[in-house]
């Protein structure tokens, strides 16, 4: 028999949301419940862009926008028409155990604490290997704890978002580096996006729950992960203030908390109408009941789009408007 269920691959961050939709979709329609694999955003994109056909996935979840390179790879492999679905937002939180005191950091401090190379302390326009051992070294206001941050590896979309939103903006607080962006983009990126490789930043696989649990057993460490994990574990963990803002549902939704990123998924238009149920699945996903302000996805920690945006997304998606990058 042929393939009768939708196949989805991609981000582990979007996985919890897309599975909820899939489950309801399976229960409330005659279609089979879609099969959703958690491969990480990058891995998902590779599978997704490998071509069209029954053996390739129909959709790919992503915790960041599709990159131009990926888009080109898709085009090259015959995945020419892609629909992009913006699902909502996810806050990235920096949190620690409740046993420790709540941290309040700025993005600049985070950059200084985690970058591989940082501007020299004397203020000259040169870079030195990151000398900071404790938070106090970074800023006297911070505690004298060893810098120990558990975070995602480069394969993860969370890492990409963190690097762009936190590190880069922290980087930009140094004028001379910011100025470099125009002159030598690659060098700029190398400075701002490189995370230190000594013990201070500990890559902890793609397993956010493990980070959560490691944090509760190690009060001195900080962890980087999606808001929903903090939401579910608020008895054990607390989010650090970033630039003075607490990571709350509201703060992320209204954009005042600075570190949040959009979540997407991508659909292969060539499969619509061939693999049964794709249209209906899109309909369900973008419906008010799921993505809306009070939709069931918000129960799972998704920060919803505002109404106008949502309606526009829904209209575009149902029309299968091809993505242009």
């Amino acid at each position, binding site marked *: 028999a042929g393939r009768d269920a939708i196949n989805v691959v991609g981000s582990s961050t979007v996985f919890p949301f897309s599975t909820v939709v899939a489950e309801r979709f399976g229960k409330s329609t005659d279609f089979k419940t879609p*099969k959703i*694999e958690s491969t990480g955003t990058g891995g998902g994109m590779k599978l997704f862009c490998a071509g069209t056909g029954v053996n390739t996935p129909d959709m790919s979840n992503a915790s960041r926008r599709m990159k131009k390179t990926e888009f080109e790879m898709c085009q090259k492999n015959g995945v020419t028409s892609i629909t992009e679905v913006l699902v909502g937002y996810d806050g990235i939180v920096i949190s620690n155990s409740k046993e420790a005191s709540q941290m309040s950091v700025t993005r600049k401090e985070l950059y200084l604490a985690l970058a591989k190379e940082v501007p020299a302390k004397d203020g000259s326009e040169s870079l030195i290997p990151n000398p900071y051992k404790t938070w106090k070294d970074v800023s006297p206001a911070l505690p004298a704890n060893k810098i120990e941050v558990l975070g995602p590896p480069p394969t993860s979309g969370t890492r990409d978002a963190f690097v762009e939103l936190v590190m880069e903006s922290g980087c930009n607080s140094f004028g001379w580096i910011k100025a470099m962006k125009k002159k030598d983009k690659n060098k700029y990126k190398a400075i701002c996006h490189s995370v230190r490789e000594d013990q201070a930043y500990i890559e902890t696989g793609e397993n956010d729950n493990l980070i959560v649990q490691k944090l509760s057993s190690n009060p001195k460490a900080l962890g980087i992960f999606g808001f929903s994990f903090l939401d579910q574990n608020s*008895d054990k963990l607390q989010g650090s203030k970033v630039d003075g803002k607490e990571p709350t549902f509201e703060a992320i939704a209204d954009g005042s908390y600075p570190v949040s990123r959009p979540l997407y998924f991508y659909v292969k238009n060539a499969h619509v109408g061939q693999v049964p149920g794709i249209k209906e699945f899109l309909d369900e996903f973008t419906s008010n009941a799921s993505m809306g302000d009070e939709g069931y996805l918000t129960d*799972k920690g998704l920060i919803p789009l505002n109404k106008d945006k949502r309606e526009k997304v829904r209209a575009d998606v149902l029309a299968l408007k091809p993505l242009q990058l």
Partner: protein
Amino acid sequence: MSDSTQKVINSLKKRHRKEKVFRAAGATAIGFGFLLVFLLITDIITKATPAFKQNWIAIEVDFQPDLLGIDGLDLTRLPKGDYRTVLRSAIFEMMPEVSGRRDKRSLFGLISSSAEFEIRNHLVANPADLGKKVTVWVKVDDDVDSYLKDDVVVGEPGIRISEKQATWIKKWVDSELIESRWNSEFFSLGDSREPESAGVKGALTGTFYTMLVTLVLSFPLGVAAALYLEEFAPKNRWTDFIEVNINNLAAVPSIVFGLLGLAVIINIFGLPRSTPLVGGIVLTLMTLPTIIIASRASIKAVPPSIREAAMGLGASRMQVAFSHVLPLAMPGIITGTIIGMAQALGETAPLLMIGMVAFIVDVPGGITDPATVMPVQIYLWADSPERAFVAKTSAAILVLLGFLLIMNSFAAFMRKKFEKRW
């Protein structure tokens, strides 16, 4: 007393001390092993117990055709009704004092999101209830469930039940609308994103099929290969080389087998991704060395005199191998199989590569249906944000261990049968 007896006596004290120490070391080792098993299992059991109970709530549902959007005649439309609205109105009717959008929303949040499907199933099963008002039991939300299970103080940070919700729940409990039941659905449902509706049936079935494929492939293959290499193959550099290589295979990180599975079994042979068939084949590759190594060792241990005796009677090498060597080597072969299968049963890494780390709700019906297996299910649940999955994870581990125990005790029974000392 002779001279040497005296010497023996002189040496005895020390030797007996050594003997005692040695024996005690053995007892300690085994005690330590037991302790570990005991600790691990009690830890898992304590964590798992909440998962075996589930709170249900009785709701008076009014199946009005117009609310459902069904006209009473076409029963085939029953499953398509708007049960969410019906459910909402039933709950709000139950708690007339709740008003305001926010409060209503948080009230509705106390019921499992699977409830609307439960009442739908009820109506589909009892079409006669259309238009009537009946009591239907539905599950409460996982947050409520954990709130009811752990006695915690509302208002404490992290308790995901607000004080208002707590008073509503208290009202339900007081009026005995809530009932804690044995969570049989844990064994009869597939995966779900709602902890209260998540079950292990899908993963367990997947594990069963995967293990079946693994056993059916790896046991005969492994034993046959071991038998051939040990009893029939000429003993030369080549066989040495092969032996060393097979031994070596045991050290290949399991994820590499996953890669091979991906590259060869899925990409070249085109077998379907995420299926027990592919999973079983990949795990076979992983188990095979274990079985071969153990089998070869125990075939080697069969004393040559037994072989000679049989050969002297005119038994062919094949007959010697099958009627003497194999039965005598069987305990060791079974041990290898037990260990190899146990390892396969608990393995996750190679399955990551072949798409078995997936959200699959439907219970697989065969070896070519998409499926996950228990360790993957455990892995996925362990990585879910919902707190209630912690208990589910442990419960799933327990189920897996149960599966393992059943599998092992059968094998251990077989091993016992073959065991002989001579």
